[in-house]
Structures are given as structure tokens and as C-alpha cells.
């Protein structure tokens, strides 16, 4: 039997209930919360500020330094605190997802620190983290060429679905589960981050991108509304 009905009853292109809000951490220069259903991420931005040690400075452009931290109690089986190989990799892909759209040449010699915490995890944590971080950067007033929005597209059995959950990630029947997190820029619709785990026919990648593009436009709308001061919580 193919995957015609999603485990949580959503439509193929439907996001989970979104939460989005900025200004949640008063001490930070910019901050935001973004949640896809039960996956909740917060992010804070500090900077731009002079980068120390000085030899790390780039005289031509600022750098973004990102830390993704999945809290020990955010998952069913306690995660060991502190950096792991996984979290280091996600920190790096988040830096790359954001660096391409920030006007880093305006901030030579500086660093922008982006701290991300996952408070509760049910898949797509890196995407929620990137969405929160992008909002926090904009909230901090950092000049950006474009906004970015991130979403995890899944191929569950042979069906392309948007914003997959842990239960969908674990789906084993038919062609199994393929997880394709995308981050897409708001104006040029370019890909600033892309990963893939699983198996997908080469000719179906465009279909996954199209689903991601469609979802990214919806997410952008939430991000923009939140940045204008709205506290979005679709769980209510």
C-alpha cells in the first residue's frame, strides 16, 4: 500500500501548525522563535562585533558564527549535552545557509554570533533553527540581500510531502523515507542549503524543489508577519 494518507492527516503540501515570534530574548540584538508543530527552535543574534582572536578577522567581510544546540531534554532519549558531530555539521550548514544572503561586506573584521537552541524536537529541527536564525538576523537589523526560509521535504514511499515528522522519517514501507531539507532565498529562489538522506530518482528532485519553493513562500509569510510584530501561534 502506498503512502496516500499522511500519518498525521495533513495534506501532502501542508505545513504543521506554525509558531513564529521575534524579540523573545531581550538581551540579544535580535531573537526569534520558530516552530513546525512539535519542533520548536529559538535563535539569538549578537553582533556584528569585533572578532577575537584578531587573526581570525577577515578584512574584507564579516563572518557568521553559528552554534546549533539540541537540548538534552528535547528528544525522547536524552541527548548528551554539548557539541556532537551532528550538531557541528548542522551549525556549519546553518552558517552557509545564512551567509550567502547577509551583506557581510558591510561588516569587515566582525563576527555575527547566531545561537540556536532546539527546545523540543520532532524532526526538521535544522530547518526550524534556520528559520528562527534568519528571523533573528532580520530582527537585529542586519542588512540582508534576501530572506531565507527552510523546510524539510520528504519522499515517503513514492510520495513527495512537505514538513515531515519523526514518524514519517521512520517510515519503512515501499521506497521508505527520504529527507530533503531545503533552504530557499526569498527573491531569487536560490538554494542556500540542501541536504538529502535516503533515495530519490534523479528526475524527481525538481518536484521536491517545487514543493520546497511553495512551502518556503508560506514560511516567508509567517516570518514577515512575525517581524512586523505579530505573535503567530496556530496551535491555539
Amino acid at each position: 500500500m502506498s503512502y496516500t494518507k499522511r500519518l498525521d492527516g495533513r495534506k501532502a503540501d501542508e505545513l504543521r501548525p506554525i509558531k513564529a515570534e521575534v524579540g523573545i530574548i531581550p538581551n540579544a540584538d535580535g531573537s526569534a522563535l520558530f516552530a513546525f508543530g512539535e519542533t520548536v527552535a529559538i535563535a539569538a543574534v549578537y553582533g556584528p562585533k569585533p572578532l577575537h582572536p584578531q587573526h581570525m578577522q577577515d578584512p574584507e567581510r564579516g563572518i557568521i558564527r553559528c552554534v546549533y544546540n539540541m537540548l538534552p531534554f528535547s528528544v525522547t532519549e536524552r541527548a548528551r549535552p554539548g557539541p556532537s558531530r551532528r550538531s557541528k555539521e548542522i551549525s556549519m550548514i546553518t552558517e552557509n545557509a545564512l551567509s550567502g544572503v547577509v551583506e557581510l561586506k558591510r561588516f569587515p573584521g566582525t563576527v555575527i554570533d547566531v545561537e540556536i537552541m532546539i527546545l523540543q524536537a520532532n524532526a526538521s529541527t535544522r530547518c526550524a533553527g534556520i528559520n528562527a536564525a534568519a528571523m533573528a538576523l532580520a530582527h537585529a537589523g542586519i542588512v540582508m540581500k534576501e530572506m531565507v526560509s527552510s523546510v524539510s521535504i520528504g519522499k515517503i514511499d513514492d510520495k513527495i510531502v512537505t514538513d515531515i515528522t519523526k514518524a514519517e522519517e521512520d517510515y519503512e514501507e515501499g521506497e521508505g523515507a527520504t529527507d530533503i531539507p531545503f533552504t530557499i532565498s526569498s527573491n531569487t529562489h536560490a538554494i542556500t542549503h540542501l541536504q538529502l538522506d535516503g533515495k530519490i530518482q534523479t528526475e524527481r528532485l525538481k518536484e521536491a524543489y517545487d514543493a520546497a519553493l511553495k512551502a518556503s513562500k508560506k514560511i516567508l509569510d509567517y516570518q514577515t508577519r512575525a517581524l512586523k510584530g505579530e505573535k503567530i501561534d496556530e496551535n491555539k
Partner: protein
Amino acid sequence: MEIPNINKNKITEVLEKDKRLDGRKLFDYRDIEIETGISKNAEGSARVRIGKTEVIVGVKMDVQEPYPDHEDEGTLITGMEFSPISGERYESGPPKIDAIEVARVVDRGIRESKFIDFKKLCIKEGEKVWSVLIDIYAINDDGNILDASALASVAALMVAKMPEYDEKTEKVKFGEFTKDSVPLTENIPFTMTFHKIKNKLFIDPNRDEEDTSEGRVTLAITKPKKEYIINAMQKGDMALFSIDELEQVVKETEKLYDKMFNELNKKIEKLMKK
């Protein structure tokens, strides 16, 4: 690590004319050499050279408890080090993010392609399974360590022999090998990285080209039947990719797979018979 801007400019300038400073075309690999059996205590080992880039990989096996969510499957652990031996830019110490990324991307290509038959690595469900440990070392980094690491890992797995296992004592007799190969499938992953400078895509950068590269995307691909399947993908660095560029990457990957895979596979199969 910075290279002089004059080199970067030169690399960029010739790329705009679809050329490379070493005379290659955009989608040409440098010469690839594969050697196996480089360390006899390893269950399997391989050296891959792509031009002046050199990587060695060793496969070790051990018996461990399975993961609770896959009680009847063996496990895979992949590690990578850019040791100071491979170039002056590297320092000793625990693996940094560049090495971690190489290990994780190689791991995903092997894991997601189902190249290793993990179910056949189960000794006693829920209690004892074989663990495959892949260790990758950069010996000389002249760019594109990632593709070299993936190819060397596949070669080392293909020549690897299972160690003896004493069922009474439930211990591995390290250093004593059976004639059995590590259980593998036909889904051999082929991993390729595309780089981007301005709007030019190319593969297999040398050191200076890699330092000039603005973005990259890696694909691990298999062709189990007639279809090409992407099993892992990872975009790296800052540059943005348009969907058109991504589609070009996929198309070139399919072409490169057809052009190179059989030849490389034949090379490895010949080494397996040695």
C-alpha cells in the same frame, strides 16, 4: 587558508572560458589510482589518488551491541582526520568540522545506498552485531579529499574480509581472517562533488581551485536498475545554487556515473581477485 588573489583571479578568468589552468575540461577528473591491501592488519584497506591528492582508508570490524531501534542490524561508524601530514594548513588535535563533514557525507552515501547489507551483520538479535568501522586519513591534500575518501571507502569495503569470531567465548579473533567478504549489495555508491565559481560549475578541484570555490554540492548516486538514485546530497559553502544549476549538476552526475563508474568498479574488482 588564503591563496593570493592573483591566483584566484586567474582561476576565475580561465573558468569563464570553460577552461582550467591545468588544461582539464570543467567535468574532467584528474587521473584516479586505486590500490588496496595497504595495511594487512585491517580487514580491508585502500589508497586512492586523484592527481596529487591522496587518501588512505582502513576498515576494521568489531562486535558490539546493536542500536535499540535496529536490533537485527550491524552498525557503521565513519571517522576522518586531516592530519598535519597532509598539508601545512592542518594542525593536530581532534577532527574539526571539515573532517567531520567528509566523514558524515561518506557515511551517508554508504548507509543510504544500502551498500552494506546490515541485516547480514547480525550475530544475535538485540545482543550482538558486527560493527563496521571506517577510518579515513588524508595523506596529501591537493583538493577534493571528499570524493577520494568516498571512493577509497568503497574500495576498502569491497576487499574487506570478515575476522574470525569465536562463538563460545563470543570474542573476535583479531588478526585472523575468514575467506568471507563483508556482506555488500550491488548498490555501489559513487560520490561526486561539484564546485561553483561565479556561475561556472566544475568538478575535482585542485588545492587552489578549491580555495577559490564559492560553493559546492556533493551527490552520492547509485544505479540499482535503470534509474539513477541519489542517496545522499550535501551543499557546502556560501554560494547559492539556482534550481537550473542543481539540475545541471544532476545531469552531469548521471553522465559522469556512466562514463566513470564501470571503469572504477572494474579496477576495484581486479584488486579483489588479487
